[in-house]
């Protein structure tokens, strides 16, 4: 293992004093700064995503799929400002998904498995932003920016946006399975095995949304109890778990190629791990 490399190039720790000074120190000296950058970007992105998609644009939970042309046109008109401002923010920060995908790929790169896992995940999730987020944003923005358009055309955009967002889960299914397989085969204990199994649960929810293509109302429609609400609970738990576990991975990272060490449960060790210095 190359643990000594980190020890030799990093000063003992950040200086006491202002928060700005400490941030500047970490920016210059923390050997894990790229990993922390990716992790904080992930946290910030999910917060922005939640705020934009839920309270700002009201795109989530999705509105009813059985609405008439007039109701859909009213929805575009009613949420006009939120849709435009919210999705403008998403277009500006969409690239924040890249560091997140890179961090997840890094977790696989750190495992004792083939590099193919990390790279295939990276390729798949580079594509996933399109059906998983951007198509909906583009289509609903088009609808909101042209309020005078024929309601039937607005309805078409509405269906296209929500069906593409809810129904195209193949990439996420395969991505979850790739991560699961990497975790279960790994011998470096980068992520716990239970999270590997949780990936399987998450992958199965991607199948459960498939009936949303068929049903206009009820529990299997795109805003239904089974297709959306239960899946969203699973996704929320899964997302919370992987953000926490990636943070633990960074704390435990020793830049070696063997099993990741455990973090001792004392404040000094944690501070040292945060600062990217060895004990």
């Amino acid at each position, binding site marked *: 293992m190359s643990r000594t490399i980190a020890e030799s190039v990093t000063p003992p720790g950040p200086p006491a004093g202002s928060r700005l000074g400490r941030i500047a120190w970490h920016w210059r000296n923390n050997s894990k700064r790229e990993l922390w950058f990716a992790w904080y970007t992930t946290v910030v992105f999910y917060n922005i995503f939640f705020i934009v998609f839920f309270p700002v644009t009201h795109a989530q939970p999705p509105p009813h799929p059985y609405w008439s042309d007039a109701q859909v046109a009213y929805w575009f008109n009613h949420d006009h400002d939120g849709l435009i401002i919210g999705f403008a923010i998403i277009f500006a920060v969409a690239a924040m998904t890249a560091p997140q995908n890179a961090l997840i790929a890094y977790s696989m790169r750190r495992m004792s498995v083939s590099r193919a896992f990390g790279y295939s995940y990276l390729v798949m999730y580079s594509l996933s932003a399109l059906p998983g987020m951007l198509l909906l944003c583009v289509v609903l923005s088009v609808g909101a920016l042209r309020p005078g358009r024929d309601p039937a055309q607005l309805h078409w955009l509405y269906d296209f946006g929500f069906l593409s967002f809810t129904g195209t889960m193949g990439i996420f299914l395969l991505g979850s399975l790739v991560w699961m397989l990497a975790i279960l085969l790994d011998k470096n204990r980068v992520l*716990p095995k239970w999270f590997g199994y949780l990936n*399987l649960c998450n992958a199965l929810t991607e199948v459960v949304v498939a009936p949303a293509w068929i*049903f206009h109302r009820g529990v299997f429609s795109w805003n239904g*109890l*089974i297709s959306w609400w239960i899946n969203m609970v699973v996704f929320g738990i899964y997302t919370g778990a992987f953000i926490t576990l990636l943070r633990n991975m960074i704390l435990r990272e020793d830049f070696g190629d063997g099993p990741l060490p455990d973090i001792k449960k004392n404040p000094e060790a944690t501070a040292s791990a945060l600062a990217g210095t060895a004990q």
Partner: protein
Amino acid sequence: MTGAAQAGPRPGVAGQPPGKGTGEPATAIPGQPDMWVLVLFEALVFTAYFAVYLFHRSAHSELFLRSQATLNPWLGTLDTLLLLASSLFMLRCVQAARAGAFRPALTSACITAFLGAGFLASKITEWVLLVHGGHGFTSNEFFAYYFFLTGIHFLHLLIGFVVIGVIIYQLRGPARRSRELVETCATYWHTVDLLWVLIFSLLYVVR
């Protein structure tokens, strides 16, 4: 995170029977504790599905009873018997693996897979008969739940075949044999069986 949660599989000693004298410690929970997270999580998710089903069933009891009557209870019973028998052979597989009798364990694992395949064949037959009888996924609410619950269970069972493949791979190589992994895989298979018993009760039996 606990050390137990992070611990990887503890392989048995190569070429020796697992259990006594292998250096593989006996644990209070069979298999990897991590697998029980999946069991618990899937149990919670399916409980949510069942709760939604029962809520809608109580709201449309007439329709559900009428639709239930079109199901073939004998095929449902056959499915259940096949899976219960497969669970029995999975149990025999684990017991044999624990005792170091790897050939009988391998035979039991293959019989488990055979019975599971029988279940899949029976389920596909039932689906085909229903669709030919005019009862599809979108026919009514009951059949939407029926095809959803049996379909998602079918998917779990397909994953179960991968799991049995892992057991067979483990048992065939003396250097790979691990009691813990066999128990972990068996836990998954039993979970899928248990889910079917609940689905069978809700769709075929409950009136």
